[in-house]
């Protein structure tokens, strides 16, 4: 069957889709968007989390045919999504970005401050990255990425948490991310990353008087 839907703001079509395929499979294998990860394909790990019409869902549990005509945001589109939200949605969502606060200041976190001028890029010669969303930057800065396989799903879930609640308590963060398994980090630095993104959003808001 043919399936047509919007992914990261662009209309996409997939042909010859087998009816039993999941949204995850279509994204990964048919649309060149393997950022959403295939860790369990049974809704237990959250690594395939995407926004479906704005709502975080496990894309492995969405039948491809169910997405017809709907809107999907994946980790590949997260930076653009966050930027547009910041531009159009104001700063209330706490996802406005900026690097004004280190978690050191915010939460007494002892790791290296950001903004030391480290630059990161992929292969030389590829086009430079568009700016990262605040939560993406915070994951890098806080050391929340190890193998990184859980990272895309966690980013989508954490970004949505901060959109709803720009000052989450630790318990709020834990509850919001309880559907995302990570096997490498022990979650401590993931918590740090969300705190850091929240703190930076706060300081940005305070700084601009918004």
């Amino acid at each position, binding site marked *: 069957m043919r399936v047509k839907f919007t992914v990261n703001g662009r209309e996409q079509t997939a042909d010859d889709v*087998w009816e*039993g395929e999941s949204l995850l499979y279509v994204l990964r*294998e048919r649309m*060149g*968007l*393997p*950022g*959403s*990860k*295939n*860790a*369990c*394909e*049974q809704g*237990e790990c959250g690594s395939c989390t995407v926004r479906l019409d704005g709502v975080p869902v496990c894309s492995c549990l969405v039948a491809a045919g169910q997405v017809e005509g709907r809107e999907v945001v*994946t*980790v*590949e589109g*997260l*930076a653009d999504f966050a930027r547009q939200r910041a531009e159009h949605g104001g700063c209330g969502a706490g996802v406005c970005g900026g690097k004004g606060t280190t978690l050191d200041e915010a939460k007494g976190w002892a*790791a*290296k401050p950001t903004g*030391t*001028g*480290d*630059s*990161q890029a*992929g*292969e*030389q010669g*590829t086009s430079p990255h568009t700016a990262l969303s605040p939560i*993406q*930057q915070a*994951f*890098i800065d806080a*050391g929340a*990425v*190890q*193998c*990184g*396989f*859980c*990272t895309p799903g966690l*980013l989508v879930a954490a970004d949505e948490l901060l959109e709803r609640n720009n000052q989450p308590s630790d*318990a709020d963060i*834990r*509850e919001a*991310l*309880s559907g*995302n*398994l*990570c*096997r*490498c*980090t*022990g*979650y*401590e*630095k*993931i918590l740090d990353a969300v705190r850091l993104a929240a703190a930076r959003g706060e300081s940005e808001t305070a700084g601009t008087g918004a």
Partner: protein
Amino acid sequence: MAGVTRTPTNLTQGSKTPAGIGASTLRPDGTLKVTGEFAYSSDMWHEDMLWGFTLRSTVAHAEIRSIDTSEALAQAGVYAVLTYDDLPTAVKNYGLEIQDTPVLANGRVRHHGEPVALVAADHPETARRAAAKIKIDYAELPVVTDEASATAEDAPLLHPGRKDHHAGHVPHPNIVHRQPIIRGNADEAAKRADVIVTGEYDFGMQDQAFLGPESGLAVPAEDGGVDLYVATQWLHSDLRQIAPVLGLPPEKVRMTLSGVGGAFGGREDLSMQIHGCLLALRTGKPVKIVYNRFESFFGHVHRHSAKLWYEHGATKDGKLTHLKCRIVLDGGAYASASPAVVGNASSLAVGPYVVDDVDIEAIALYTNNPPCGAMRGFGAVQACFAYEAQMDKLAKALDMDPVELRQRNAMEQGTLLPTGQVVDSPAPVAELLRRVKAMPLPPENQWETTEGADVRALPGGLSNTTHGEGVVRGIGYAVGIKNVGFSEGFDDYSTARVRMEVINGEPVATVHTAMAEVGQGGVTVHAQIARTELGVQQVTIQPADTQVGSAGSTSASRQTYVTGGAVKNSCEAVREQVLQKGRLKFGTYHPAWATAELLLEGGKVVTDGGEVLADIVDVLGEESVEVELEWRHRPTEAFDLETGQGNGHVQYSFAAHRAVVEVDTELGLVKVIELACAQDVGKALNPLSVVGQIQGGTTQGLGVAVMEEIVVDPKTAKVRNPSFTDYLIPTILDTPTIPVDVLELADEHAPYGLRGIGEAPTLSSTPAVLSAIRAATGLALTKTPVRPEHLTGT
């Protein structure tokens, strides 16, 4: 490789700060990973590619009477169906140490989920449907599942006619390897004991549960070879096992490490590697294989389940008199890393304590259970669970504080191990315990709020099982010892190719190794080492592949030590060549070129007094310097097969934990409130990564303590919970705060004084949690994981 999308790329990282060793520099692959662009092995894609599928045995032990693939082959969209009979050469087995594992079952399956046939088709569903049409006639055989059944006189032999190098010294052919460690006279010493405690312990089978499933893409090449993109822990070990089965010279099997979604030991053995290559070579098309989570539970080895019997004796003042123990590890159907697991379990069976008189025996069995092999801390993890339970039991019998008892017996630098080896680097066991005990305790009753109980802070969490009823707090301690690097005489080396050149007017270092980056941050550390040694800001890390010499395995806490050491060593050689060029070019301009100790710092050649002699850019000009060198740590020796004596290890890693738990004693549910860790890391090359490793390892130990176990039916040897629905790993709501205290006592034998760190926290975490639950409940608790049934007597 043309046509492959998302190939692994160079990672280039610049830095305006020193960002050498000791700094918490950020991962060079971080941006790719947070944008979803990082190329994991399951993300590989090639136009025209086929999908491979593995048909696995539905029974644990059977003779295969016949296999009929005709219907499968006839299905539209199917390009190949392969069985044992299609293997192209006389080499049909593989294995890490013992080549006992069939690429595809040869007339017999020995465990549930063993690969029997392969299908390549144009869509995964086509492949699955075709596989379902393969008819296999199994004649079931009785299963052996434990020591008694495996070593019974009439036990069916898993591998009749064994010819491996352990076959000669084991008491029964269903024992893979046996290692005794005998020192002093335990029976005599027992007479000096005022108190003797014994115990029998069960350690459940743990799964690595890495999130990135086994997967890869094999692309047939015009030269008759194959290019393989895969997630593994050791490219060259894979290559050594793959090439002979394919009948190809190693240089025609070109392997590139793709993004690895965690490993923890589970990728030391082969999974889809040979299968993918066979299908690609047969069909002439690229073949992708991706396991789903169900298959992944059958696609890799697990952590050995173990039964452990211990006897400890001590004098009234708490000094250990002797130790006797017997450790039986279930290796399952194939050997995998079992021999090394036996070596670790036996040689570290006493833990980080001084005991002069020991009688230790460890064995690994062949059974029809799932094969077990490498997982984080192997051998040492199982032993630590048991000896730490014993230390608590002994403390109770002596009416002594359990930390005090441990400290009185703690090993230190200079201690003689039961193997006769001297511990020749710092061993701050007592200090780690002191530190972890000194950390402030988390407040009590944290669930209490002005609006009632916050169930998220209680055992059971959101399941709303208690509002404080039945909840009792307990505190427990544990400490452990893990060997670092490959032991027992293994030639443990790594290779690093380092190049230095000027690009866009700036000196740039390029590091190329075959090290498997599985998440641990080796790529970060390599860039840091290059900056420290070569005074550059820009470092490019090339993808790991087999176009450079072996790096050894990303295992045994060894990569920063060994491949880090290799990178340092190659950088030093590059530096020497750069300085030599400088001397030739500019030596006549300044006497210091000949007389001073010279360094590369901030892009310049400087004297150890800080005087700048030249820009590296000017020294190099258009030229580049490149070296590829092997580097090895100090050699080790095999253990004597009768006495276990020998300098078997090169380095040790120590960690201590304090667990604070709250147990709902009526429902038997546990919430770990805090899991504090103190660990000696020698030198933290990247403190941020070090803490991340410790917290991650601690959490895997927590999982074993309270929830993780692969459950195998003892009657059928079939796995009962091969899914993330029933094999549970900790969520963020199960994982407590993990404060970490990092101690840095240099090991003068190691690069920068560093110590391998990855495994130690996984050892002591589990027994600390068990100890805390015992403290809360007063129960003996001799099994992992602790289940509600154990706590409620149901």
